[in-house]
């Protein structure tokens, strides 16, 4: 079991944990964290896949991909958190029936 294979397996494990977390949790913050875990898992697999060049050197392309992936994941998480904050702000502001009425109308 070479080292890279271990890295790949942990990546996949992280992925499964993340997906489970996303699917089972209802609270928004937990879902956002779960998605980040999935991201981390995928990036780990990407890095693990990079160890292949015959001359022993590390193949740079997956690393570039991981960097970009991290940038994308961070920006998406930022947007998600902004929405979560807006939802939280709305919830406080209209603790009365309006929120429920909104819910009903959306149905």
């Amino acid at each position, binding site marked *: 079991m070479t080292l890279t294979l271990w890295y790949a397996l942990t990546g996949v494990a992280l992925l499964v944990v993340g997906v489970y977390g996303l699917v089972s949790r209802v609270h928004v913050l937990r879902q956002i964290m779960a998605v980040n875990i999935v991201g981390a898992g995928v990036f780990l*697999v990407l890095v693990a896949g990079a160890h292949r060049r015959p001359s022993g050197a590390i193949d740079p*392309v997956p690393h570039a991909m991981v960097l970009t992936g991290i940038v*994308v994941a961070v920006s998406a998480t930022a947007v998600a958190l902004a929405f979560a904050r807006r939802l939280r702000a709305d*919830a406080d502001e209209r603790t009365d029936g309006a929120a429920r009425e909104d819910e009903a109308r959306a149905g």
Partner: protein
Amino acid sequence: MARRERTRPVPADAPWIVWTVVLPLLAAPVAFVLGRRGLAPFAAASSLGVAASVAALAWQVAAQGVQRHRLGGWGAPLGIELHADGLSVLMLVMTAVTGVVVSLHAHGTFGLGGHETREPSGRARFWPLWLFLWGGLNAVFLSADLFNLFVSLELVTLSAVALVALAATRVAVAAALQYLLAAMLGSLLYLLGVALVYATEGTLSLDELARGAPHASVAPPALALLTIGLALKTALFPLHFWLPPAHANAPTPVSALLSGLVVKASFYVLWRLWFQAFPGVAPFEASMLLAVLGTGAIVWGSVQALQATRLKSLVAYSTVAQLGYLFLVFPLVGGPGGLAAWQACAVFAVSHAFAKAAFFMAAGNIRLAAGHDRIADLDGIGARLPRSFFAVGLASVALMGLPPSGTFVAKWMMMRAALESGQAWLMVVMLLGGLFSAGYCFRVLARAFTPPTDTPLQPVPGSLDAAALALAVIALATGLFVAPALDLLAIGAPDVAGLGQDGPR
């Protein structure tokens, strides 16, 4: 991705392929900076500019065949390549036409303020996001390697999610969040697929992948992952939960863009993978599975549309249903008449985009005028909104796949391919889909014929009706002008016959 401004000697005379991607991406930040001052002229100039570059590219492709361009001069496997063949140009044209008309409608809607958007400055926020979305879509249709597709898809998703949240109602924000989470999960799965592909193939470029067949044994699971990711982003039947709330609660022009264009982008990527990058990798059973899911989508979407109480959720579920049609093409492409089915699917996508966008805009106008869009209470209003209901009528003709719309011609070709490849059950599904769509469309149309009542109606600005009507007429006209579209599609079409799939046993 910083873009270095260094043009290298490029085979074509002018790098229109670059401009179509770069122009909207550049215009977006400028629009954001301008804010409300002088936004209208700039917005008009930029959208016309992008449309012009798309037209030029289309002319170039038609004249000189497939266009290629290496960004920054770096070739594969590292560099980013842009690749424009018939299919991508058709998608670009679709995006441009729908985009321009819908942005006209959006300009009017967001200018009104009121319940659609809480802040009066909705227009100032719409344009930057829409230009980002447009740039992302152009990038998706033009990029030639898997990772670039990932990045463009992300760009599209983020701008789409932000556009949904423009509605600023609590429900819209919640829907946008769910949409974002689902889309992120989809892209990460897609990224995992890309990782596997790179790990085994060593390259990400679609052309090299195409030439690299036969693929290593690892390719199938990678393709499976890619397919699942993209299916989640295209809201294929069991994974469609995020689409209806997002599209129903977004502002009207945004739902038009989402239903018409955004869902098509991820399907386009799936299309490229199955028929260009990994031809023949997936056995016939896999494409049959997709077709079965497509059928499920048609049936389930239509049933929900028939039961929807609100007009916009009806149209949203109709999107879920109509997407099902696109997935019916997979088992057909392998068999005889596959090329016709492949072309038909493209024509269907284009015609559906126009029709769905028109339908959404008209539904929005009705909601604007009546103050609500509960279908049951629309009696009596129909007669007093002739242009909007006429647009709904024309759009539903296209959705039902009745002549003279493009969807009719597409259905005709797909049914014929289904018969020639001996899969008559697909034809039955298409007919069933047509009947279902007739069902839910006429639910709305019947309202137009009820005697007019005197409930107060808000005046709807002429430009909104005109936009909806224009796009509906274009949707119908595509039926009559299918021949030029088919010639365009022939440029760079994958040689479907050699797909290696052993077709239906």
